[in-house]
């Protein structure tokens, strides 16, 4: 058993940013545990550009963005272990992990930051009938096969789901000579960025079919076709609208789920809406000394926001280790009227400064105001021409607004119509 002040689980964008900022806040006894053989997490396979506009004011590819943070971690001499899987954590912050070289290792930490990311929803979770042939991949698996290993998972492709990974993979497979026959989206709108719809689909005349889904996968051995159908308002397939598309590959981009298997072991309270931990304004979960940030907390749209959130978590974890932890009462922030969730879910009454709230809406709304209402009074309001479920919204309350929220009995984040 060894002791460590801060253990960060995950060496992707969240873990790297948290480590760097914890170090900069004065913490020196840090260990990053990463299960892959490289730091950088999912960014290593996201070779497309578009990362870093907020953080570095330039457009980087995923590996470039990752390398900026990897360099910062290495410059600071922060310790990390690769190929190391955390097997368990508990609420006393005992961390058990294993790798080939060191065998089974047990650490006792003063604080833990969960930065273990998310995973893709598999085929089974969406109940598509049909065969169990080869040729069905989650979009991220296909991305790894092509960009990391250099193998092509298919030649004729249908993609279910128009999230950004699905869109990016439509272009990526087209670049490598595959024919992407259609992107099929269950909802009447895409959860991906317009930019990706234009530059990954429209540029190559790949059809995007809204309110459609895959109802059957056919093939022995390897996928030979999929049957798609239109869905009704309740998202049930409409009989008679089926059409069969010949293909050898079905890619699934049907959502990401925060990976909280470890959190559960430590009795971390999870939100049924985000799938991640319930946290306070220090990014601390309701298990003392266990923090969470990045996609393990809630699925982000841009890595820039992951970095920002994680730097805050790292800083607060360092403060916690020093004994500067927020205590006492807190106020719950409720998401209402079109807002699906808000992170953090709790804010401590004590403390000063600005407060960042991150949220997602449940549908596409146009001409609305995003409001923070405390004890019935509007404390903050922002006009939005459009809000969509695919984009995370962030609002920053200034000191005065933050104080009003901290003092309130009831705080709500909601959408309101713009009065004409």
């Amino acid at each position, binding site marked *: 058993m060894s002791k460590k002040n801060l253990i960060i689980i995950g060496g992707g964008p969240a873990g790297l940013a948290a480590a760097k900022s914890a170090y900069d806040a004065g913490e020196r006894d840090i260990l990053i545990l990463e299960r892959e053989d490289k730091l950088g997490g999912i960014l290593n396979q996201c070779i497309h550009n578009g990362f870093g506009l907020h953080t570095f004011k330039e457009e980087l590819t995923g590996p470039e963005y990752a390398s900026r943070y990897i360099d910062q971690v290495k410059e600071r001499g922060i310790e990390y272990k690769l190929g190391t*899987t955390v097997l368990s954590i508990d609420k006393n912050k005992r961390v058990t992990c294993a790798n080939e070289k060191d065998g*089974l290792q047990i650490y006792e930490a003063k604080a833990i930051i969960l930065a273990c990311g998310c995973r*893709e929803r598999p085929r089974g979770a969406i109940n598509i*009938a049909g065969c169990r042939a080869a040729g069905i991949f989650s979009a991220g698996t296909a991305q790894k096969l092509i960009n990391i290993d250099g193998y*092509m998972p298919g*030649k004729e492709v249908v993609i279910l789901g128009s999230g950004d990974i699905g869109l990016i993979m439509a272009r990526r497979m087209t670049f490598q000579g595959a024919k992407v026959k259609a992107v099929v989206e269950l909802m009447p709108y895409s959860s991906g960025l317009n930019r990706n719809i234009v530059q990954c689909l429209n540029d190559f005349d790949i059809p995007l079919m809204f309110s459609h889904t895959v109802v059957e996968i056919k093939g022995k051995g390897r996928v030979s076709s999929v049957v798609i159908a239109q869905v009704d308002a309740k998202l049930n397939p409409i009989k008679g609208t089926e059409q069969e598309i010949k293909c050898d590959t079905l890619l699934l981009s049907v959502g990401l789920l925060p990976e909280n*298997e470890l959190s559960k072991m430590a009795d971390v309270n999870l939100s049924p809406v985000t799938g991640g931990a319930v946290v306070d304004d220090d990014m601390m979960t309701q298990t003392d000394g266990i923090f969470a940030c990045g996609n393990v907390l809630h699925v982000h749209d841009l890595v820039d926001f992951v970095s920002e959130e994680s730097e805050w978590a790292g800083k607060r974890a360092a403060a916690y280790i020093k004994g500067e932890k927020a205590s006492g009462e807190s106020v719950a922030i409720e998401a209402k009227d079109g807002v699906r969730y808000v992170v953090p879910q709790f804010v401590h009454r004590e403390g000063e400064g600005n407060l960042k709230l991150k949220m997602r809406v449940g549908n596409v709304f146009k001409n609305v105001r995003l409001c923070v209402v405390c004890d019935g009074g509007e404390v903050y309001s922002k006009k939005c021409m459009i809000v969509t479920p695919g984009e995370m919204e962030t609002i920053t309350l200034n000191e005065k607004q933050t104080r009003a929220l901290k003092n309130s009995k009831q705080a709500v984040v909601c959408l309101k119509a713009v009065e004409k």
Partner: protein
Amino acid sequence: MSDIIIIGAGVIGCSIARELSRYDAKVTVLEKANDVACGTSKANSGVVHGGFDAKPGTLKAKFNVAGNAMFDKLSKELDFPFRRNGAYVLCFDDDKWDGLKKLYDQGMENGVLDVKVVTGDEVRQREPYVSKEVKGALWCPSSGIVSPYEMTIAYAENAADNGVKFVFEKKVASVAQNGRKLRVVCEDGDCYDADVVVNCAGLYSDELNNSLCEKKYKIVPRKGEYMLLDKTAGYLTGTTLFQLPTAMGKGILVVPSVHGNILLGPTAVDIEDKDCKDTTYDGLAEAFEKACITVPSLTKKQVITQFTGLRAHADAGDFVIGWAEDKPMYNLVGIESPGLTAAPAIAVHAAKEISSRLSLKENPSFNPVRKGIPCFATMTEKERAEIIKKNPLYGRIVCRCEVVTEGEIVDSINRPVGAKDLDGVKRRTRAGMGRCQSGFCSERVMEIIARERGIDMTEVTKSGKGSEIIVGRVE
């Protein structure tokens, strides 16, 4: 030395192979797939039935009860997961008590003496998520659950350890008399001569018999669709939950797996295509809706995968076990439920009959014990530390959902009757069987398979020829 050819490497073929390896004979198993347990044996409920359901006097009743009793010793000997979790047959209507009573009487007649009728409240006391509509149930504590493919693999490995030869991707076309021997002709032109042929061809056992024998059989594939729930749904029941049976079978079950998942199904539809492994929109909907009658709080959110199994239903209704007329072919036809439960008893019986016909001597070096792959996921911290020290590959976790290490995967490929592809590794180690359904680990497992088998990544398959995963290299 006598030549015995077993056709089919399902649980029946593999268990008979193992029981025959107790004797001095040359035993060869021919299998059309590239692995054992690729048909009905991999896709069923995994229930070790009590034996109250089979009609008294039938072979099903006899071998069910005898087989059930063998599982405790057998599962230890062959190191496969088995647990006596008990089963309820649920009665939802006050006017259906007769049905329960009939099952009870059948149980008594078959020698299942531990069954008893209990009230709905007693059921809910043990299993609180069972529907409030349940009025009463038959309780059978000797009912169990087993991993059917792991049991088959264990049998096969032990058989191989004791000298049985397995030949895969060897589809048999016909069997013909060749002098005093039988000649097994394969689709690729290969021929095998045998003193005895054991017909364990499952869904195809009718065709195999019919190619040689006067008396004809007909197997109807009876399709059953299942849904598998995440381990986090495991709290829903620890007991096997049947509904009162219908003419088509035992109805829709809600049953825990030995690994802690929950299985819903199967539906029962007679079809034509013996190769059909497809699930259907309507079939899955039926499995789910009917399972909700038993456990109303089920949600589709907990589903991680779906699959189809085909039962080899013989038109006669009962198992056909024994010599085919005057031919040296030993038939095992129509081994549907409770075939998995019956398999250990059937195998002992068949091996005895075959050995006595051929006057086989005992195999003095027979070793009944098989050790499975050490399972990292269920080890204590001390055991984990020790095994990584012994074999560092146990320190590399490949499948994060099921906590499967590279050490286990390498072992699964290199042991006798080893895994050849992703599904083979999955059935032996559980890599890819968890909630992400191999999204993260498939690529790593493919690399390990390619490395250990000395093949190219483009040759790695999901489940045999034609199921290659990669179509080429990035240029």
